[in-house]
């Protein structure tokens, strides 16, 4: 009995909060009224012009949007020297957002909403620390106390972000249970929320979790794709053949995909293959997972035959998660989006290459998307009979990963001089 087999009675389709068979709201009863409140607030407040105007102001004058679109010719030539498979390569520069990643788009929107709902306290989970930093930033600028749950393993490997969160006045709580990574941080945040649900807003960091979070986070991240589409049309005169993004929970990817879903543009998500899919030590819930329920949503997850969640493995803390947002599960199932993988080693090498050719030190999460460009270009160009024109969501900058990148760099130097 595996989890990928369809379950007994199919749930009716097109239910609110569902993407095909994925999504829903699988949480303890205590939280349901809070999710209903949030769902209403999403419709009545977030979608209203007044909120949109205020949030857009913040995005422009605080975050620094619109972020640039950079053409990456040197990298394109390094990946494909003769230009047979990879024609143009465009980078949507979310690394240039205030705090260094796309996460701030979502955090500012949610904290602004929490403030309007009269919530007195903000909590968040974080993996790479980028969402934690973004939430701490949003809470600071809006004057709300903030506590961030972070797996003890991640506290260690993303130390610069722990320092940033504390500098911003947030309390970072190291989670020692389970695999001591993102999944366990989310468990702990849910326990906090169930305890303090009347006063606290839980600022979920990705397009995952129970309804309405996947929809809310997508709405707050779709600015990435909306801007990119406009910039691409203005700069290159047409839409790209495909857009590419790394997938942890899936927020930068769904934000980038959103504007292209109804266009003739292929969508590629890149998951973390860790030490390799065959080793079982990976974080590729879409590529190698099965249907199940994790953190409030029916989606693709890594679980064993008893339904216990399997610990994910990735060098990148932000991708080190055994599930994925439900819309990606639906996009995979319908075939509208395609998902490929990149290993720890490939990501490290890609980060090195991007730094040398484009002068950009990218986050390890983002490096996975770069690592897959070669295979994606090959696939797209083959089917089109001409070099591919790709646009990649450069979701964040790599300052937080310098220690890891440096270690890899040194081991490379040793290998080449040996």
């Amino acid at each position, binding site marked *: 009995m595996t989890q990928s087999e369809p379950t*007994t009675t199919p749930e009716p389709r097109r239910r609110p909060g569902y993407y095909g068979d994925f999504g829903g709201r*699988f949480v303890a009863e205590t939280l349901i009224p809070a999710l209903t409140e949030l769902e209403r607030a999403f419709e009545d407040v977030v979608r209203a012009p007044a909120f949109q105007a205020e949030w857009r102001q913040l995005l422009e004058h605080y975050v620094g949007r619109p972020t640039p679109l950079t053409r990456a010719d040197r990298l394109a030539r390094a990946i494909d020297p003769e230009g047979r498979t990879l024609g143009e390569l465009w980078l949507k520069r979310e690394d240039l957002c205030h705090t260094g990643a796309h996460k701030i788009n979502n955090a500012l929107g949610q904290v602004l909403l929490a403030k309007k709902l009269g919530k007195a306290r903000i909590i968040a989970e974080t993996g790479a620390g980028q969402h934690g930093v973004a939430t701490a930033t949003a809470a600071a600028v809006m004057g709300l106390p903030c506590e961030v749950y972070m797996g003890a393993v991640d506290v260690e490997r993303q130390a610069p972000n722990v320092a940033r969160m504390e500098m911003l006045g947030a309390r970072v709580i190291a989670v020692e*249970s389970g695999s001591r990574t993102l999944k366990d941080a989310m468990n702990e945040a849910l326990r906090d929320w169930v*305890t303090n649900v009347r006063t606290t807003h839980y600022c979920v960091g990705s397009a995952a979790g129970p309804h309405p979070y996947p929809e809310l986070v997508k709405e707050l991240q779709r600015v990435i794709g909306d801007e990119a589409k406009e910039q691409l049309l203005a700069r290159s005169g047409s839409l790209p053949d495909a857009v590419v993004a790394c997938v942890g929970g899936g927020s930068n990817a769904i934000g980038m995909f959103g504007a292209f879903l109804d266009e003739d543009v292929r969508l590629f998500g890149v998951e973390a293959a860790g030490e390799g899919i065959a080793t079982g030590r990976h974080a590729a819930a879409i590529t190698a997972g099965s*249907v199940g329920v994790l*953190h409030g949503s029916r989606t693709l*997850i890594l679980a064993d035959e*008893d339904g*216990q969640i399997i610990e994910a493995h990735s060098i990148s803390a932000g991708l080190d998660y055994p599930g994925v947002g439900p819309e990606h599960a639906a996009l995979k199932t319908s075939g509208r989006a395609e998902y490929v993988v990149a290993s720890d080693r490939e990501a490290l090498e890609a980060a090195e290459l991007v730094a040398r050719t484009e002068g950009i030190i990218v986050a390890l999460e983002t490096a996975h998307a770069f690592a897959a460009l070669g295979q994606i270009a090959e696939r797209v160009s083959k089917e089109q009979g001409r070099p591919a024109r790709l646009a990649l969501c450069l979701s964040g900058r790599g300052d937080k990963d310098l220690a890891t990148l440096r270690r890899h760099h040194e081991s490379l130097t040793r290998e080449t001089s040996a």
Partner: protein
Amino acid sequence: MTIERIDTCFSKLAAEGKTALIAYLTIGYPSIEESFECALAALEAGADVLELGVPFSDPTADGPVIAAAMYDAIRGGGNLRAALEVARRLRERSDKPMVLFTYYNPVLAFGEEELVAAATAAGLDGILVVDLPPEEGRGFRDAAARAQLAIVPLAAPTTGADREPRILEGARGFVYYVSVTGVTGTGEAPLAEAGRQARALQDRSGLPVVVGFGIDGPTKAREVAAQGARGVVVGTALVRAIGAAAPGERARSVADLIAALRAGLDRRDGVA
């Protein structure tokens, strides 16, 4: 038997003027065999209903004590299948109601209809799925209803009047009222208020309502019962007692705590 066994149990207790004592154990903690012994000890010492907790890797509704017990239980081979086997063996020795207490993902992995069939065969009378609100899992509910297996609904302090009919729709057996916004094992549950809410919900629904979360001994159990709740659930305190006892003493420690709770609930004098 199934739902009928639960109904008979609560009617009998009501006739005797007694409050149901419901014992929760994480099956597989500290081992599957010891869980069996502890569960049997609980039933023999005066528990009226047994909740068999299925260990899950990510128990977001549980506090640190039960979460840690689940972690150990999984490492010791605990899973849904093992809990069913423990239930089957207990059924050979006891005629009291038994309810499976689980998260949803192990149910999905096992197969929803397969679980309904296996639970019925094992002699279980109901299933409580912590993270399956009434809006979800329709197929599972239908299958359980056909098999006369109670799907025990949860109500919480945040549940408003608007949601109550949805929670009670098709409810059988009993309703589990969560005493506090929080996870299991909290020391700060407003128990008298929870008892009053349970009583009111009982009057509106016509079903027995039991109160759980934060009841760790006879005093708190009596506080809830005094308000007219039909039952109290004790979980974390039992799991903690098992963890604190020496090997070989675990079933005894469960029996002692259950006996104390039973005595506390059955005392007819006033409550402080």
